[in-house]
């Protein structure tokens, strides 16, 4: 198997995904170690695929994640999905993101960070195409600096964000096609909670477990809209007649306005 190019080995390791499997496989010989260091593009730490993580202390977990990430270079997809961890320290999370952000295209992260880390500020203006974030807070989106020129997929679950920041964030993604919002904690400044999102590139929108006075979605190219378990006073869709699939599950809405102005 000596003819196997080191890039192909890197590709095999990337398809393994799970960090534990990658570490074990890269211990086979020097060539496989080199493949892990130079050609690994996908790495995942998930309590679902490696139950041992659940028995480790958080600080130990932080160290092993740091060690493993720092062995790689040019990582394109990173998943850190831990079910039983209460929170990671900000310094560890900042180190992981700073080390990988230049090449990172996909980030999946679901652990609360203490104190809060501004993931948008660290990962903005780079190559991110998929951002799937849960149990974190987004505070103060600065649209001039935090731009996501390549982002196509944004998913926020149990994320605390203000209505204004959510509006600014969607506007800062000129190529966004898919938006998923699950149980967001919408912070608001005035008494009436209005979320206003506007994007001409959005094609699919999924909103679950949201309670708002007013939700206005301006999306000229929207094709699929799915609302689930929502309580809305007013829901307004401003589009151009492109909607093909509209699904509502367990939604209470008083004024529903699908203002599709056909063009």
């Amino acid at each position, binding site marked *: *198997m000596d*003819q*196997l*190019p080191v*890039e*192909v080995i890197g*590709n*095999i*390791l*990337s*398809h*393994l*995904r*799970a*960090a*534990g*499997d990658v*570490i*074990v*496989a890269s*211990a*086979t*010989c*020097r*060539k*496989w170690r080199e493949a892990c260091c130079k050609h690994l593009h996908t790495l995942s730490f998930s309590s679902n695929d490696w139950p*041992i993580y659940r028995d*480790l202390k958080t600080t*130990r977990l932080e160290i*092993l994640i740091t*060690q*493993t990430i720092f062995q790689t270079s040019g990582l394109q997809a990173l998943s850190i999905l831990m079910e039983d961890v209460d929170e990671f320290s900000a310094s560890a999370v900042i180190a992981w993101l700073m080390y990988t952000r230049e090449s990172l295209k996909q980030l999946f992260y679901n652990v609360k960070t203490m104190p809060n880390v501004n993931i948008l500020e660290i990962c903005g203006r780079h190559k991110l195409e998929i951002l799937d974030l849960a149990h974190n807070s987004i505070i103060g989106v600065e649209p001039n600096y935090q731009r996501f020129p390549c982002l196509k997929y944004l998913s926020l679950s149990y994320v605390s964000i203000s209505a204004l920041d959510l509006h600014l964030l969607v506007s800062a993604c000129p190529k966004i096609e898919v938006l998923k919002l699950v149980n967001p904690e919408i912070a608001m400044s005035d008494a009436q909670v209005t979320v206003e999102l506007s994007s001409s590139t959005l094609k699919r929108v999924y909103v679950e477990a949201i309670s708002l006075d007013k939700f206005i979605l301006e999306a000229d190219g929207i094709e699929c809209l799915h609302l689930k378990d929502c309580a809305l006073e007013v829901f307004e869709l401003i589009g151009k007649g492109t909607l093909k699939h509209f699904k509502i599950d367990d939604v209470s809405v008083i004024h529903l306005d699908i203002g599709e102005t056909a063009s």
Partner: protein
Amino acid sequence: MAEKASPSSNSISLKTVDGKIFKVSPAIANQMLTIQPLIKDSDSSTIISLPDVAAFHLTKIIEYLEGKPAAAPSAVDAFEAQFVKDLSPEELKGLLIAVGYLKVNGLVDLMANTVAKLIENKSVEYVRKFFGVVNDFTPAEEAKCRQEHAWAFDGVDED
């Protein structure tokens, strides 16, 4: 296009390491990225030699490139599952080398993923045996690696 050659006259000839010659259309050959630069300058008399590819592997590669459905991700998944289903570990490894050498569109990922599934949650010894890899670490280096990453070496299957 200035010239309207018939498909047979502008087909590309590929010669495998075991001496078989295959004629393929430029559309198929162009998906093998390694030989792409050679195709532009070749005419019907050119034979491109493939030192790392045996006839069996090239047959499978052509079967994949010709048979892969153009649309519908579910159809592609079904086709790919069927394609790898009957391959033995030996055939898989040989095909992996051939596909890695030729850089075949789509097939590189499919082969890497198929092989990855076979070494998931396995021991280092299993991976070495599977790929016929010789351990070139010193005992001290190996012990250090196992100690540093003890968490990863606990709880894997031995075979």
